[in-house]
Protein backbone atom coordinates (compact mmCIF):
# COMPACT_ATOMS: atom_id res chain seq x y z
CA UNK A 1 0.00 0.00 0.00
CA UNK A 2 1.33 3.44 -0.88
CA UNK A 3 1.03 6.55 1.24
CA UNK A 4 -2.29 7.73 -0.24
CA UNK A 5 -3.93 6.74 3.06
CA UNK A 6 -2.25 9.83 4.54
CA UNK A 7 -4.67 11.97 2.55
CA UNK A 8 -7.73 13.40 4.26
CA UNK A 9 -9.85 16.52 3.85
CA UNK A 10 -8.07 18.26 6.75
CA UNK A 11 -4.62 17.46 5.30
CA UNK A 12 -5.76 18.93 1.99
CA UNK A 13 -7.12 22.03 3.76
CA UNK A 14 -3.78 22.50 5.55
CA UNK A 15 -1.88 22.07 2.29
CA UNK A 16 -4.00 24.72 0.60
CA UNK A 17 -3.44 27.20 3.45
CA UNK A 18 0.25 26.57 4.08
CA UNK A 19 1.58 25.73 0.63
CA UNK A 20 -0.70 26.50 -2.29
CA UNK A 21 -2.08 29.88 -1.30
CA UNK A 22 1.35 31.34 -0.41
CA UNK A 23 2.78 29.91 -3.65
CA UNK A 24 0.12 31.58 -5.75
CA UNK A 25 0.60 34.83 -3.81
CA UNK A 26 4.33 34.69 -4.55
CA UNK A 27 3.49 34.29 -8.21
CA UNK A 28 1.63 37.57 -8.06
CA UNK A 29 -1.90 36.16 -8.16
CA UNK A 30 -2.89 38.24 -5.15
CA UNK A 31 -5.38 37.21 -2.51
CA UNK A 32 -6.77 33.92 -3.72
CA UNK A 33 -8.60 32.93 -0.54
CA UNK A 34 -11.96 33.62 -2.17
CA UNK A 35 -11.28 31.33 -5.13
CA UNK A 36 -10.20 28.47 -2.87
CA UNK A 37 -13.36 29.02 -0.85
CA UNK A 38 -15.48 28.69 -4.01
CA UNK A 39 -13.75 25.39 -4.76
CA UNK A 40 -13.60 24.17 -1.16
CA UNK A 41 -16.01 21.28 -1.65
CA UNK A 42 -13.40 19.47 -3.71
CA UNK A 43 -11.91 16.82 -1.45
CA UNK A 44 -14.50 17.35 1.31
CA UNK A 45 -14.55 13.54 1.51
CA UNK A 46 -11.57 11.41 0.49
CA UNK A 47 -11.94 7.64 0.28
CA UNK A 48 -8.84 5.55 -0.38
CA UNK A 49 -8.94 1.90 -1.45
CA UNK A 50 -6.12 -0.58 -2.05
CA UNK A 51 -7.80 -1.80 -5.24
CA UNK A 52 -10.95 -1.15 -7.27
CA UNK A 53 -12.22 -2.43 -10.60
CA UNK A 54 -13.01 1.01 -11.99
CA UNK A 55 -13.16 4.20 -9.92
CA UNK A 56 -16.01 5.59 -12.10
CA UNK A 57 -18.13 2.49 -11.50
CA UNK A 58 -17.37 2.69 -7.79
CA UNK A 59 -18.51 6.34 -7.79
CA UNK A 60 -21.81 5.38 -9.44
CA UNK A 61 -22.31 2.65 -6.87
CA UNK A 62 -21.43 5.08 -4.07
CA UNK A 63 -24.09 7.53 -5.29
CA UNK A 64 -26.68 4.77 -5.52
CA UNK A 65 -25.96 3.39 -2.06
CA UNK A 66 -25.98 6.82 -0.44
CA UNK A 67 -29.33 7.68 -1.98
CA UNK A 68 -30.89 4.35 -1.18
CA UNK A 69 -29.87 4.74 2.45
CA UNK A 70 -31.47 8.21 2.41
CA UNK A 71 -28.18 10.05 2.78
CA UNK A 72 -26.79 12.74 0.52
CA UNK A 73 -23.69 12.48 -1.63
CA UNK A 74 -20.95 14.88 -0.56
CA UNK A 75 -20.12 17.17 -3.46
CA UNK A 76 -16.40 16.93 -4.22
CA UNK A 77 -15.98 13.37 -2.92
CA UNK A 78 -12.66 11.94 -4.09
CA UNK A 79 -12.32 8.20 -4.61
CA UNK A 80 -8.73 6.97 -4.87
CA UNK A 81 -7.31 3.51 -5.42
CA UNK A 82 -3.73 2.25 -5.43
CA UNK A 83 -4.58 0.11 -8.41
CA UNK A 84 -7.49 -0.30 -10.81
CA UNK A 85 -7.99 -3.75 -12.23
CA UNK A 86 -10.47 -2.97 -15.02
CA UNK A 87 -9.59 0.60 -15.87
CA UNK A 88 -10.20 1.90 -19.35
CA UNK A 89 -9.89 5.10 -21.30
CA UNK A 90 -12.39 6.52 -23.77
CA UNK A 91 -13.97 4.22 -26.36
CA UNK A 92 -12.96 1.20 -24.26
CA UNK A 93 -9.27 1.88 -24.84
CA UNK A 94 -6.95 0.23 -22.38
CA UNK A 95 -5.61 2.23 -19.47
CA UNK A 96 -3.03 0.48 -17.36
CA UNK A 97 -3.39 1.39 -13.67
CA UNK A 98 -0.92 -0.61 -11.56
CA UNK A 99 0.40 0.46 -8.14
CA UNK A 100 2.52 3.59 -8.27
CA UNK A 101 0.15 5.89 -10.16
CA UNK A 102 -2.58 8.25 -9.06
CA UNK A 103 -5.92 6.77 -10.07
CA UNK A 104 -9.35 7.87 -9.05
CA UNK A 105 -12.55 9.75 -9.57
CA UNK A 106 -14.07 12.99 -8.38
CA UNK A 107 -17.82 13.25 -7.83
CA UNK A 108 -18.93 16.72 -8.76
CA UNK A 109 -22.56 17.86 -8.54
CA UNK A 110 -23.66 19.42 -11.82
CA UNK A 111 -24.53 22.91 -10.67
CA UNK A 112 -22.81 24.81 -13.47
CA UNK A 113 -24.80 26.75 -16.02
CA UNK A 114 -24.61 25.28 -19.54
CA UNK A 115 -22.44 28.20 -20.71
CA UNK A 116 -19.73 27.20 -18.23
CA UNK A 117 -19.77 23.41 -18.48
CA UNK A 118 -17.38 23.39 -21.46
CA UNK A 119 -14.63 24.72 -19.21
CA UNK A 120 -14.89 21.90 -16.68
CA UNK A 121 -12.95 19.29 -18.72
CA UNK A 122 -10.08 21.77 -19.11
CA UNK A 123 -9.49 21.99 -15.37
CA UNK A 124 -7.90 18.58 -14.61
CA UNK A 125 -5.44 19.06 -17.48
CA UNK A 126 -4.44 22.49 -16.16
CA UNK A 127 -4.11 21.33 -12.54
CA UNK A 128 -2.09 18.27 -13.48
CA UNK A 129 0.16 20.13 -15.90
CA UNK A 130 0.93 22.77 -13.26
CA UNK A 131 1.64 20.09 -10.62
CA UNK A 132 3.96 18.26 -13.00
CA UNK A 133 5.89 21.40 -13.94
CA UNK A 134 6.22 22.24 -10.26
CA UNK A 135 8.04 18.96 -9.54
CA UNK A 136 10.41 19.31 -12.46
CA UNK A 137 8.63 18.05 -15.59
CA UNK A 138 9.13 21.48 -17.12
CA UNK A 139 8.00 20.53 -20.61
CA UNK A 140 4.63 19.13 -19.51
CA UNK A 141 1.94 20.46 -21.82
CA UNK A 142 -1.74 19.95 -22.57
CA UNK A 143 -3.07 18.44 -25.76
CA UNK A 144 -6.67 19.46 -26.53
CA UNK A 145 -8.85 18.71 -24.59
CA UNK A 146 -7.01 17.57 -21.48
CA UNK A 147 -4.33 14.97 -22.18
CA UNK A 148 -1.09 15.85 -20.44
CA UNK A 149 2.02 15.02 -22.43
CA UNK A 150 5.67 15.06 -21.49
CA UNK A 151 8.35 14.43 -24.11
CA UNK A 152 5.50 13.87 -26.56
CA UNK A 153 4.12 10.93 -24.56
CA UNK A 154 0.97 10.72 -22.48
CA UNK A 155 1.57 11.04 -18.76
CA UNK A 156 -1.96 11.75 -17.62
CA UNK A 157 -5.48 11.37 -18.98
CA UNK A 158 -8.91 12.45 -17.82
CA UNK A 159 -12.50 11.53 -18.52
CA UNK A 160 -15.64 13.41 -17.62
CA UNK A 161 -18.86 11.41 -17.60
CA UNK A 162 -22.30 12.60 -16.63
CA UNK A 163 -24.49 10.50 -14.42
CA UNK A 164 -28.06 10.85 -13.24
CA UNK A 165 -28.58 9.46 -9.76
CA UNK A 166 -31.07 6.58 -9.61
CA UNK A 167 -33.28 7.79 -6.75
CA UNK A 168 -33.38 11.58 -6.76
CA UNK A 169 -32.38 12.08 -10.43
CA UNK A 170 -29.58 14.46 -9.41
CA UNK A 171 -27.01 15.17 -12.11
CA UNK A 172 -23.34 14.62 -11.35
CA UNK A 173 -20.11 14.85 -13.29
CA UNK A 174 -17.69 12.04 -12.63
CA UNK A 175 -14.17 13.21 -13.34
CA UNK A 176 -11.91 10.23 -13.77
CA UNK A 177 -8.16 10.76 -13.57
CA UNK A 178 -5.10 8.67 -14.20
CA UNK A 179 -1.58 10.02 -13.70
CA UNK A 180 1.47 7.84 -14.35
CA UNK A 181 3.78 8.68 -11.47
CA UNK A 182 6.03 5.86 -10.22
CA UNK A 183 4.62 3.11 -12.42
CA UNK A 184 7.11 2.62 -15.23
CA UNK A 185 6.05 -0.62 -16.89
CA UNK A 186 3.48 -0.30 -19.65
CA UNK A 187 1.80 -3.03 -21.67
CA UNK A 188 3.10 -3.44 -25.24
CA UNK A 189 0.23 -1.43 -26.81
CA UNK A 190 1.07 1.61 -24.66
CA UNK A 191 4.86 1.45 -24.93
CA UNK A 192 6.03 4.33 -27.06
CA UNK A 193 2.97 6.46 -26.31
CA UNK A 194 2.94 6.51 -22.48
CA UNK A 195 5.43 7.75 -19.94
CA UNK A 196 5.59 8.15 -16.16
CA UNK A 197 6.86 11.00 -14.04
CA UNK A 198 9.52 8.75 -12.50
CA UNK A 199 10.84 8.04 -16.00
CA UNK A 200 10.96 11.75 -16.74
CA UNK A 201 12.69 12.72 -13.49
CA UNK A 202 14.83 9.61 -13.08
CA UNK A 203 13.57 9.24 -9.52
CA UNK A 204 10.39 8.26 -7.74
CA UNK A 205 8.05 10.94 -6.44
CA UNK A 206 6.03 11.02 -3.25
CA UNK A 207 2.52 10.01 -4.27
CA UNK A 208 0.64 11.78 -1.47
CA UNK A 209 2.59 15.01 -1.98
CA UNK A 210 1.87 15.04 -5.70
CA UNK A 211 -1.79 14.22 -5.05
CA UNK A 212 -2.09 17.14 -2.61
CA UNK A 213 -0.57 19.54 -5.12
CA UNK A 214 -2.88 18.28 -7.90
CA UNK A 215 -6.04 18.38 -5.76
CA UNK A 216 -5.20 21.84 -4.38
CA UNK A 217 -4.92 23.13 -7.94
CA UNK A 218 -8.18 21.41 -8.87
CA UNK A 219 -9.76 23.31 -5.97
CA UNK A 220 -8.36 26.60 -7.19
CA UNK A 221 -9.54 26.19 -10.77
CA UNK A 222 -13.00 24.86 -9.89
CA UNK A 223 -13.26 27.86 -7.56
CA UNK A 224 -12.27 30.09 -10.45
CA UNK A 225 -14.98 28.49 -12.59
CA UNK A 226 -17.70 29.12 -10.03
CA UNK A 227 -16.41 32.61 -9.26
CA UNK A 228 -16.41 33.62 -12.91
CA UNK A 229 -19.93 32.26 -13.32
CA UNK A 230 -21.07 34.36 -10.39
CA UNK A 231 -19.34 37.47 -11.77
CA UNK A 232 -20.99 36.93 -15.15
CA UNK A 233 -24.41 36.61 -13.54
CA UNK A 234 -23.73 39.77 -11.55
CA UNK A 235 -22.99 41.56 -14.83
CA UNK A 236 -26.44 40.60 -16.08
CA UNK A 237 -25.81 37.09 -17.41
CA UNK A 238 -26.41 37.65 -21.11
CA UNK A 239 -27.56 34.74 -23.25
CA UNK A 240 -24.06 33.72 -24.27
CA UNK A 241 -20.76 33.87 -22.44
CA UNK A 242 -18.37 35.16 -25.06
CA UNK A 243 -15.46 36.44 -22.95
CA UNK A 244 -12.17 34.62 -22.78
CA UNK A 245 -12.67 32.66 -19.57
CA UNK A 246 -9.68 32.86 -17.18
CA UNK A 247 -9.64 29.05 -17.11
CA UNK A 248 -9.28 28.99 -20.89
CA UNK A 249 -6.64 31.70 -20.74
CA UNK A 250 -4.55 29.57 -18.37
CA UNK A 251 -5.18 26.47 -20.51
CA UNK A 252 -3.77 28.30 -23.54
CA UNK A 253 -0.62 29.17 -21.59
CA UNK A 254 -0.04 25.50 -20.83
CA UNK A 255 -1.11 23.90 -24.10
CA UNK A 256 1.07 23.20 -27.11
CA UNK A 257 -1.89 22.37 -29.38
CA UNK A 258 -2.30 25.77 -31.11
CA UNK A 259 -0.08 25.87 -34.17
CA UNK A 260 0.23 22.08 -34.45
CA UNK A 261 -0.57 20.10 -37.57
CA UNK A 262 -2.99 17.46 -36.29
CA UNK A 263 -5.06 14.48 -37.30
CA UNK A 264 -8.60 15.04 -36.08
CA UNK A 265 -11.27 12.45 -35.40
CA UNK A 266 -14.12 11.78 -33.04
CA UNK A 267 -12.30 8.56 -32.18
CA UNK A 268 -9.01 9.48 -33.75
CA UNK A 269 -7.32 6.13 -33.17
CA UNK A 270 -10.08 4.07 -34.80
CA UNK A 271 -11.48 6.56 -37.29
CA UNK A 272 -9.14 9.45 -38.10
CA UNK A 273 -11.07 11.98 -40.17
CA UNK A 274 -8.76 14.63 -41.56
CA UNK A 275 -5.51 16.53 -41.19
CA UNK A 276 -5.45 20.26 -40.49
CA UNK A 277 -3.51 22.95 -38.65
CA UNK A 278 -4.83 24.24 -35.32
CA UNK A 279 -5.13 27.97 -35.92
CA UNK A 280 -6.62 28.79 -32.52
CA UNK A 281 -9.03 27.98 -29.76
CA UNK A 282 -12.42 29.70 -29.75
CA UNK A 283 -13.72 31.30 -26.58
CA UNK A 284 -16.11 28.38 -26.09
CA UNK A 285 -13.11 26.02 -26.14
CA UNK A 286 -13.58 24.86 -29.73
CA UNK A 287 -10.60 23.77 -31.76
CA UNK A 288 -10.24 26.11 -34.77
CA UNK A 289 -8.84 24.07 -37.64
CA UNK A 290 -7.33 25.50 -40.82
CA UNK A 291 -7.80 23.15 -43.77
CA UNK A 292 -5.56 22.79 -46.81
CA UNK A 293 -8.07 24.71 -48.98
CA UNK A 294 -7.83 27.74 -46.67
CA UNK A 295 -11.20 27.27 -44.98
CA UNK A 296 -11.62 26.99 -41.23
CA UNK A 297 -13.87 24.81 -39.11
CA UNK A 298 -14.44 24.64 -35.37
CA UNK A 299 -14.70 21.32 -33.52
CA UNK A 300 -16.04 20.98 -29.99
CA UNK A 301 -16.03 17.20 -29.74
CA UNK A 302 -13.36 14.78 -30.75
CA UNK A 303 -9.65 14.46 -30.25
CA UNK A 304 -6.37 15.09 -32.00
CA UNK A 305 -3.03 13.47 -32.48
CA UNK A 306 -0.07 15.59 -33.49
CA UNK A 307 1.44 14.88 -36.91
CA UNK A 308 5.12 13.94 -36.78
Amino acid at each position, binding site marked *: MDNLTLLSPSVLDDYVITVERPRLKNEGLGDNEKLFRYGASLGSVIRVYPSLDRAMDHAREHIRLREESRRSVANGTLILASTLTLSKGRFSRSWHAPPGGLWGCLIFADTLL*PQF*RNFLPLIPGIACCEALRQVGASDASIRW*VNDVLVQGKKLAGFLVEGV*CSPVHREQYHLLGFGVNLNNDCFPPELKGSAISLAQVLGAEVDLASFALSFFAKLRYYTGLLFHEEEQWLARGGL*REYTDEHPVLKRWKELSDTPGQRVIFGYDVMESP*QYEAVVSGISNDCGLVLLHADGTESVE*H*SGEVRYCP
Partner: protein
Amino acid sequence: MSDEIDFDEILGKYHSDPYEYVDIYASHTGVIRFLVEEGSSVDAVSGEWKHVPGTALFEITRENNPKKVTALTNGVVSSIRSELEGCFVEAGAKLLTIRHPLKKKEIIESILKEVLYIFPAPERAKYFFSLDVQSRIEKKGAREVSVKPGDEIIIMSLMKRDTPVYYSGEKGVIHSVYFKPGVSVDQGAPLIGICPTEKLPLIKKIITRVKADWDQKE
Protein backbone atom coordinates in the same frame (compact mmCIF):
# COMPACT_ATOMS: atom_id res chain seq x y z
CA MET B 1 -50.90 11.66 -33.86
CA SER B 2 -54.11 10.89 -35.68
CA ASP B 3 -54.78 7.52 -37.33
CA GLU B 4 -56.29 9.30 -40.27
CA ILE B 5 -54.07 11.32 -42.53
CA ASP B 6 -55.47 13.54 -45.21
CA PHE B 7 -52.90 12.68 -47.85
CA ASP B 8 -54.39 14.95 -50.47
CA GLU B 9 -54.18 17.91 -48.14
CA ILE B 10 -50.60 17.22 -47.08
CA LEU B 11 -49.38 16.47 -50.59
CA GLY B 12 -51.31 19.37 -52.03
CA LYS B 13 -49.51 21.66 -49.61
CA TYR B 14 -46.10 20.43 -50.78
CA HIS B 15 -47.12 20.50 -54.45
CA SER B 16 -48.26 24.09 -54.26
CA ASP B 17 -45.33 25.26 -52.18
CA PRO B 18 -42.43 22.74 -52.23
CA TYR B 19 -40.20 24.88 -50.06
CA GLU B 20 -39.03 25.11 -46.50
CA TYR B 21 -38.79 28.63 -45.10
CA VAL B 22 -35.73 28.90 -42.87
CA ASP B 23 -35.74 31.91 -40.58
CA ILE B 24 -32.35 33.31 -39.59
CA TYR B 25 -31.99 35.06 -36.23
CA ALA B 26 -29.28 37.14 -34.56
CA SER B 27 -27.16 34.79 -32.47
CA HIS B 28 -26.27 37.59 -30.07
CA THR B 29 -26.68 41.32 -29.70
CA GLY B 30 -24.80 43.57 -32.11
CA VAL B 31 -24.91 45.91 -35.08
CA ILE B 32 -26.08 44.30 -38.32
CA ARG B 33 -24.65 44.75 -41.82
CA PHE B 34 -26.40 42.63 -44.43
CA LEU B 35 -24.30 40.92 -47.10
CA VAL B 36 -27.23 39.66 -49.23
CA GLU B 37 -30.45 41.19 -50.48
CA GLU B 38 -33.94 39.93 -51.21
CA GLY B 39 -33.81 37.51 -54.12
CA SER B 40 -30.14 36.60 -53.64
CA SER B 41 -29.28 32.94 -54.14
CA VAL B 42 -27.37 31.45 -51.25
CA ASP B 43 -25.25 28.30 -51.03
CA ALA B 44 -25.24 25.89 -48.12
CA VAL B 45 -22.26 24.85 -46.03
CA SER B 46 -20.37 22.14 -47.92
CA GLY B 47 -17.21 20.09 -48.07
CA GLU B 48 -16.44 16.58 -46.88
CA TRP B 49 -16.23 17.78 -43.28
CA LYS B 50 -18.81 20.53 -43.67
CA HIS B 51 -15.89 22.90 -43.38
CA VAL B 52 -16.58 25.09 -46.44
CA PRO B 53 -18.85 27.88 -45.22
CA GLY B 54 -22.03 28.77 -47.06
CA THR B 55 -22.81 32.21 -48.48
CA ALA B 56 -22.14 35.02 -45.99
CA LEU B 57 -25.55 36.40 -44.98
CA PHE B 58 -24.69 39.24 -42.63
CA GLU B 59 -22.06 40.57 -40.30
CA ILE B 60 -22.89 41.20 -36.66
CA THR B 61 -20.54 43.40 -34.65
CA ARG B 62 -20.37 43.58 -30.89
CA GLU B 63 -17.64 45.46 -29.03
CA ASN B 64 -15.59 45.90 -32.24
CA ASN B 65 -15.71 42.15 -32.78
CA PRO B 66 -17.31 41.52 -36.18
CA LYS B 67 -18.63 38.04 -36.94
CA LYS B 68 -19.82 36.87 -40.35
CA VAL B 69 -22.80 34.53 -40.27
CA THR B 70 -23.08 32.13 -43.20
CA ALA B 71 -25.92 30.08 -44.67
CA LEU B 72 -26.34 26.48 -43.55
CA THR B 73 -28.91 25.73 -46.23
CA ASN B 74 -29.20 26.64 -49.90
CA GLY B 75 -32.02 28.60 -51.45
CA VAL B 76 -33.11 32.14 -52.15
CA VAL B 77 -33.49 35.02 -49.68
CA SER B 78 -37.27 35.40 -49.68
CA SER B 79 -37.46 38.22 -47.17
CA ILE B 80 -34.99 40.44 -45.39
CA ARG B 81 -35.46 43.04 -42.69
CA SER B 82 -33.41 45.67 -44.49
CA GLU B 83 -34.70 48.34 -42.08
CA LEU B 84 -32.28 46.82 -39.55
CA GLU B 85 -29.22 47.62 -41.70
CA GLY B 86 -26.70 49.39 -39.45
CA CYS B 87 -28.92 48.98 -36.41
CA PHE B 88 -28.25 47.37 -33.06
CA VAL B 89 -30.37 44.24 -32.60
CA GLU B 90 -31.08 41.99 -29.65
CA ALA B 91 -30.15 38.31 -29.61
CA GLY B 92 -32.91 36.28 -31.23
CA ALA B 93 -34.14 39.06 -33.54
CA LYS B 94 -35.36 37.66 -36.86
CA LEU B 95 -33.20 39.01 -39.70
CA LEU B 96 -34.07 37.19 -42.90
CA THR B 97 -35.72 34.10 -44.38
CA ILE B 98 -34.25 31.64 -46.86
CA ARG B 99 -36.64 29.76 -49.15
CA HIS B 100 -35.12 26.33 -49.49
CA PRO B 101 -36.38 24.05 -52.32
CA LEU B 102 -37.33 20.64 -50.93
CA LYS B 103 -36.30 17.34 -52.51
CA LYS B 104 -38.50 14.23 -52.36
CA LYS B 105 -36.51 12.78 -49.46
CA GLU B 106 -36.76 16.07 -47.56
CA ILE B 107 -40.52 16.19 -48.12
CA ILE B 108 -40.91 12.67 -46.72
CA GLU B 109 -38.75 13.62 -43.74
CA SER B 110 -40.67 16.82 -43.30
CA ILE B 111 -44.03 14.99 -43.25
CA LEU B 112 -42.64 12.33 -40.92
CA LYS B 113 -41.42 15.01 -38.55
CA GLU B 114 -45.02 16.15 -38.27
CA VAL B 115 -46.27 12.69 -37.35
CA LEU B 116 -43.37 11.17 -35.38
CA TYR B 117 -42.38 12.20 -31.86
CA ILE B 118 -39.17 14.13 -32.43
CA PHE B 119 -36.56 14.00 -29.70
CA PRO B 120 -34.29 17.05 -30.03
CA ALA B 121 -30.62 17.61 -29.19
CA PRO B 122 -30.28 19.31 -25.78
CA GLU B 123 -27.01 21.06 -26.72
CA ARG B 124 -24.82 21.52 -29.79
CA ALA B 125 -22.66 18.40 -29.48
CA LYS B 126 -21.88 15.05 -31.01
CA TYR B 127 -24.19 12.17 -30.20
CA PHE B 128 -24.05 8.41 -30.25
CA PHE B 129 -26.36 5.69 -29.02
CA SER B 130 -25.72 4.27 -25.56
CA LEU B 131 -24.00 0.88 -25.60
CA ASP B 132 -27.19 -1.00 -24.81
CA VAL B 133 -29.27 0.72 -27.50
CA GLN B 134 -26.45 0.44 -30.03
CA SER B 135 -26.12 -3.30 -29.49
CA ARG B 136 -29.91 -3.75 -29.81
CA ILE B 137 -29.90 -1.72 -33.05
CA GLU B 138 -27.05 -3.84 -34.44
CA LYS B 139 -28.89 -7.05 -33.58
CA LYS B 140 -32.41 -6.15 -34.65
CA GLY B 141 -32.41 -2.84 -36.51
CA ALA B 142 -33.54 0.52 -35.14
CA ARG B 143 -37.22 -0.02 -35.95
CA GLU B 144 -37.30 -3.07 -33.70
CA VAL B 145 -35.83 -1.14 -30.76
CA SER B 146 -38.44 0.31 -28.46
CA VAL B 147 -37.79 3.14 -26.01
CA LYS B 148 -39.79 4.53 -23.14
CA PRO B 149 -39.49 7.66 -20.98
CA GLY B 150 -36.50 7.54 -18.63
CA ASP B 151 -34.42 5.19 -20.81
CA GLU B 152 -30.78 6.15 -21.29
CA ILE B 153 -30.71 6.11 -25.07
CA ILE B 154 -28.03 8.48 -26.26
CA ILE B 155 -24.68 9.79 -25.07
CA MET B 156 -23.93 13.45 -25.69
CA SER B 157 -20.24 14.16 -26.18
CA LEU B 158 -18.93 17.67 -25.81
CA MET B 159 -15.38 18.71 -24.92
CA LYS B 160 -14.49 15.14 -23.88
CA ARG B 161 -17.43 15.21 -21.49
CA ASP B 162 -19.83 12.35 -22.08
CA THR B 163 -23.32 12.84 -20.68
CA PRO B 164 -26.18 10.34 -20.87
CA VAL B 165 -29.36 11.66 -22.44
CA TYR B 166 -32.59 10.20 -21.10
CA TYR B 167 -35.56 9.79 -23.36
CA SER B 168 -38.69 11.74 -22.60
CA GLY B 169 -41.66 11.39 -24.87
CA GLU B 170 -44.06 8.81 -26.21
CA LYS B 171 -43.16 5.14 -25.90
CA GLY B 172 -42.39 3.64 -29.29
CA VAL B 173 -39.79 2.34 -31.70
CA ILE B 174 -36.90 4.29 -33.17
CA HIS B 175 -38.19 5.05 -36.65
CA SER B 176 -35.79 7.74 -37.85
CA VAL B 177 -32.25 8.57 -36.81
CA TYR B 178 -31.19 12.10 -37.71
CA PHE B 179 -27.63 12.14 -36.37
CA LYS B 180 -24.42 10.47 -37.47
CA PRO B 181 -21.78 9.48 -34.93
CA GLY B 182 -18.97 12.02 -34.99
CA VAL B 183 -20.99 14.79 -36.68
CA SER B 184 -22.06 17.79 -34.61
CA VAL B 185 -25.77 18.37 -34.10
CA ASP B 186 -27.13 21.84 -33.35
CA GLN B 187 -29.12 22.46 -30.19
CA GLY B 188 -32.79 21.75 -30.86
CA ALA B 189 -32.15 19.80 -34.08
CA PRO B 190 -33.87 16.40 -34.19
CA LEU B 191 -31.90 13.39 -32.95
CA ILE B 192 -34.43 10.60 -33.39
CA GLY B 193 -38.05 10.21 -34.44
CA ILE B 194 -40.12 7.82 -32.34
CA CYS B 195 -43.21 6.04 -33.56
CA PRO B 196 -45.63 4.04 -31.40
CA THR B 197 -45.60 0.46 -32.71
CA GLU B 198 -49.24 0.48 -33.71
CA LYS B 199 -48.67 3.52 -35.92
CA LEU B 200 -45.90 1.97 -38.02
CA PRO B 201 -48.27 0.85 -40.82
CA LEU B 202 -49.50 4.43 -41.11
CA ILE B 203 -45.94 5.73 -41.43
CA LYS B 204 -45.18 3.17 -44.15
CA LYS B 205 -48.32 4.29 -45.96
CA ILE B 206 -47.16 7.91 -45.86
CA ILE B 207 -43.76 7.09 -47.32
CA THR B 208 -45.22 4.92 -50.09
CA ARG B 209 -47.84 7.49 -50.96
CA VAL B 210 -45.41 10.43 -51.09
CA LYS B 211 -42.91 8.48 -53.18
CA ALA B 212 -45.55 7.36 -55.65
CA ASP B 213 -47.14 10.77 -55.88
CA TRP B 214 -43.85 12.62 -56.31
CA ASP B 215 -42.52 10.14 -58.88
CA GLN B 216 -45.73 10.57 -60.85
CA LYS B 217 -45.38 14.31 -60.72
CA GLU B 218 -41.76 14.23 -61.85
